[in-house]
């Protein structure tokens, strides 16, 4: 190797290192000019280091508000078929009342993206699976529509599609005969965007939902979970859901 190439290489290396250092300079605690290695390249697989989760503050979630449900339906192309009893539900609003104190809560409930998902345990074909970053999905290519997962899920988070679907969002394929549930808007998450429900909630100014990486101590969700009391629904089942609730 000639001295010239060596010099060029070392200069390039120096530039790369200095750019990375500059980018990583902390402007203030927790805020960086460029978030190093935060965005995942399209050819990179989902990482095991990440655990996506949701934190829902029931104190801020207004009864009767269904902005998140509507946003979910728009994003994922879920249309009413005229048979509300059998229409798929990816997310629904649940109103709770403590009969002794009379205190009421309202909260959206969707797939809780468990660490130990019972739907995956029971699936006979391997269609129900958990991605490396904790998102629980249905592989429709091999789902046979047996609905074991619907029965196994303690959160009633899964639905089956009974009718032909047309006009799907190209990012969200859906069709008759397959089981489906909240995907945590995986197509958006993979492009560094928030799930549609969280975006809608924030946009409307409710700020009742936060999405982020539970494993990243610098993320807002991890900091809030570490600081304030939050609960998982049916924590007694020890499934360790990725969706947590504050104020329940």
């Amino acid at each position, binding site marked *: 190797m000639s001295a010239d190439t060596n010099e060029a290489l070392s200069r390039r290396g120096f530039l790369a290192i200095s750019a990375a250092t500059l980018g990583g300079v902390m402007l203030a605690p927790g805020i960086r000019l460029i978030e190093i290695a935060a965005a*995942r390249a*399209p*050819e*990179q*697989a*989902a990482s095991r280091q990440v655990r996506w989760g949701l934190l829902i503050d029931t104190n801020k979630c207004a009864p009767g508000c269904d902005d998140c449900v509507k946003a979910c339906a728009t994003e994922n192309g879920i249309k009413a078929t005229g048979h509300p009893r059998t229409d798929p539900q990816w997310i629904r609003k649940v109103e709770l009342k403590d009969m002794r104190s009379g205190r009421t809560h309202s909260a959206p409930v969707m797939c809780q993206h468990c660490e130990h998902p019972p739907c995956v345990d029971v699936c006979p074909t391997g269609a129900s*699976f958990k*991605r*490396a*970053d904790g998102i629980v*999905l249905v*592989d*429709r*290519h091999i789902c046979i529509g047996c609905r074991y997962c619907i029965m196994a899920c303690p959160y009633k988070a899964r639905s089956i599609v009974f009718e*032909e*679907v047309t*006009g*799907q*969002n*190209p*990012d969200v*394929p*859906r*069709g*008759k005969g*397959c089981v489906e549930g909240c995907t945590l808007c*995986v*197509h958006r998450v*993979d*492009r560094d965007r928030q799930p549609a429900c969280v975006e809608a909630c924030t946009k409307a100014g409710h700020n009742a939902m936060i999405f982020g990486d539970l494993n990243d101590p610098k993320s807002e969700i991890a900091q809030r979970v570490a600081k304030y009391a939050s609960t998982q629904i049916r924590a007694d089942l020890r499934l360790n859901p990725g969706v947590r609730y504050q104020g329940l």
Partner: protein
Amino acid sequence: MKCNGSAASAGRIASAICLLALLLPILAIASDRVPKPVIIIDKPGKCVEDIDTMRREHPDMLRHQRDQTMREGIRTRAHSLKECVACHASTKTGSVLGEKGFCQSCHDYASVKIDCFACHASKPKLASGAAP
């Protein structure tokens, strides 16, 4: 003599049969008994692989890509069905299906059922604000 003559006539019949067998497919096409696929490519430019590779291997490419995207979240664009549809949808119908649609036309000819579009969108994503 006699023997030779019958051999010659048998040879003639055999060659006639051979010729007919060779001509049959041409005759069939000429008579339009089987409608040929209509391949309309509205968007000029190169596909992600050469034509022969695409014709032979597109099902395997799609299957490979689908598992990577579904299971691992790898969302490269080159071999994704979404990008195929985005590029090959007809400018008239906006779809890859339909009688002259890019996918359906060939698949009808080859008598291969495509299940993809029972779930996947056969039309590219509309610009925001457009009616579905």
